[in-house]
């Protein structure tokens, strides 16, 4: 703990004593004023910096405008960031003893974390901007009626291709497996995504919960087509650079990649395959037993505001769950279908979901990469 943290803690204790006295008075008065004051006291009693486990780019490394309102109102409890590279990394960090107040897995992990005993539900009443959030995404953040995930950034997984070089035979995920474009295709490095896409392509009823036989077929398809793949990307920037330089012509990509390539004057199409794209949504989750639950709610409220949402859309090219926000770019508006609140659900897209046998999927995907 550094000097700054200690000073903050001292300040909080002093303030806590004053507020405790004030709360005693409010208790005597009773009624709504007293309750509100008690809530304020509780908020002020939470001391130290808010611990946030988040993806790179969402912290002090560029994401400040998205939580600027929080910093303004809580100057003594500024967020302190630890970065996660994926949900598994977040899980490992938490198991290893990291105690973030909140973190951000994606929608497919909501059930996993909700049942893990590591997180607690949010209280939407403490998030005034909550009512502006997309109801379909809000529902996806629930487990057994409780709000475990607060939706924020979102996008699609679909196919980006160079229309001057590539001529798809069909509007299908099959373009990622097209022999004509050997050495020009990029897949995304995700333990579930590729097997799910293979399952969609092969016409399985529930690609997120494939049987052993189905998984074997999906894995076989991926292994047999891997020789066509130039890169399996995990960094969006790396994939964008490779696409822009012409190293790859076809990629599993996000809407922002299409916008970026259009800015570079490339002839590109962002194709939603007939088997349907997959929609992903980032979900803030609250760690169980966190000593700063109210600060965490205030932080998420700042992130959920219309202003933060617009900034995210304009600067990062991702969608935001706040339905009131609109990006400046009409291209992005179109790619994300922001005028359609149902864009992330059927019949338009599959919203990513829980994978009961995630470990099996991950093992099979690792074997695909190793093959």
């Amino acid at each position, binding site marked *: 703990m550094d000097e700054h943290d200690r000073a903050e803690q001292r300040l909080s204790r002093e303030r806590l004593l004053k507020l405790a006295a004030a709360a005693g008075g409010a208790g005597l008065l009773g009624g709504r004023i007293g309750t509100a004051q008690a809530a304020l006291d509780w908020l002020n009693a939470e001391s130290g910096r808010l611990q946030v486990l988040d993806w790179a780019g969402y912290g002090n490394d560029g994401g400040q405008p998205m939580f600027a309102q929080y910093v303004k109102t809580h100057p003594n409890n500024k967020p302190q960031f630890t970065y996660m*590279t994926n949900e598994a*990394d977040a899980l*490992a960090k938490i*198991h*290893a003893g990291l105690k973030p107040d909140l973190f951000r897995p994606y929608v497919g992990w909501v059930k996993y974390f909700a049942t893990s005993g590591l997180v607690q539900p949010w209280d939407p009443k403490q998030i005034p901007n909550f009512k502006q959030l997309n109801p379909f995404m809000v529902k996806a953040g629930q487990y057994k009626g409780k709000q475990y995930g607060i939706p924020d950034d979102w996008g699609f997984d679909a196919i980006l291709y160079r229309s001057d070089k590539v001529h798809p035979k069909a509007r299908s995920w099959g373009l990622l497996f097209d022999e004509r474009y050997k*050495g020009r295709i990029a897949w995304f490095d995700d*333990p579930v995504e590729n097997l799910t896409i293979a399952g969609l392509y092969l016409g399985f009823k529930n690609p997120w919960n494939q049987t052993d036989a189905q998984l074997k077929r999906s894995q076989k398809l991926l292994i047999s087509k891997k020789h066509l*793949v130039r890169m399996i990307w995990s960094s969006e920037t790396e994939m964008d650079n490779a696409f822009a330089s012409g190293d790859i012509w076809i990629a599993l990509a996000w809407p922002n990649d299409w916008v970026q390539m259009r800015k570079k004057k490339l002839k590109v199409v962002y194709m939603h395959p007939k088997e349907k794209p997959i929609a992903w949504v980032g979900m803030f989750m609250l760690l169980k037993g966190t000593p700063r639950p109210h600060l965490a709610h205030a932080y998420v409220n700042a992130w959920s505001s219309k202003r933060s949402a617009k900034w995210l859309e304009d600067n990062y090219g991702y969608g935001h769950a706040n339905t009131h926000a609109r990006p400046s770019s009409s291209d992005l508006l179109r790619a994300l279908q922001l005028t359609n609140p149902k864009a992330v659900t059927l019949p338009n897209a599959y919203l990513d979901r829980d994978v009961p046998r995630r470990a099996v999927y*991950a093992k099979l995907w*690792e074997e695909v990469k190793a093959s």
Partner: protein
Amino acid sequence: MALSEVHDPPARLGRRRWLRLDLTTPTLLGLPLAWLVVFFLAPIAIVAAYSFDVYSLNPGPHGFTLTAWHDFLHSSVYLRLFWKSVKLSLTVSAIIVLLAYPLAYYLALSGTKRKYILLLLLIAPFLTSYLLRVLAWKVILGNQGAVNTFLFWTGLRSPDHPLSQLLYSRFAVMLVLGYIWLPFVALPIFVSLESLDRRLLEAASDLGASRLQAFRRVTLPLSLPGVVAAFLFVFIPTLGEFVTPSLVGGASGYLYGNQIVDLFGTGFPDWETGSVLAIFLLGVVGALTIVFARFLQPGEVTVD
């Protein structure tokens, strides 16, 4: 009194010396040994424990099991990947030893006054970061990189058909690894050649040996420990390498080291299998080091 001190019996003197040594040795060796135990042996033991599932950060039932080892040893996928990495590392190591030897030979034996300046130039890339040196190759090898731009300019390739296999390929991994490790190879060979007793070469010449014979019978055997050390310097780290393949290797340049990192870090944590792969790699490298260590003894000059 003074006399008795002077005439201490030899046995007592020896004992005192032994006592002194007894305190000095642990003092000198204690810290490095403790460092080695805490930061090298203990982590390896923990990783080994992960591989048998007797220890894990993840909650849930855990107990000794050989399942991960059984699956690994019966998995053609992982063993094939390991063999792919071995072949790539062997090729890279052999090629750069062959390239570095003449370079080190020239620097050590040519008698040039500028050899230390040349040596400095050789190791100059080390003044920049490893990551930067790898990333620089992306600028050189990409579709719109320096090589392809030159080919377009000369008309050898059209911009519509660049040499696309330069980047994101196994070739790219080998090229970049070779570039990165070349100075590591040249230095041990240079040191072994420079410490060569020149009188042996004069003697060989006096005895009628040609320059080639002197090289084959004298210089090469005596520099062999340096060559073997250089080879190991490259082979061992490149066998577990994951940074270069992940930056320039693409799907076809994916190596065993990448698999270990991915099993620990991406997807769904599978530390058990990741640990098995890591311990297996450590075992193989350890065994190879023991085998090669005997070649690190000074070579002998054969006389017919």
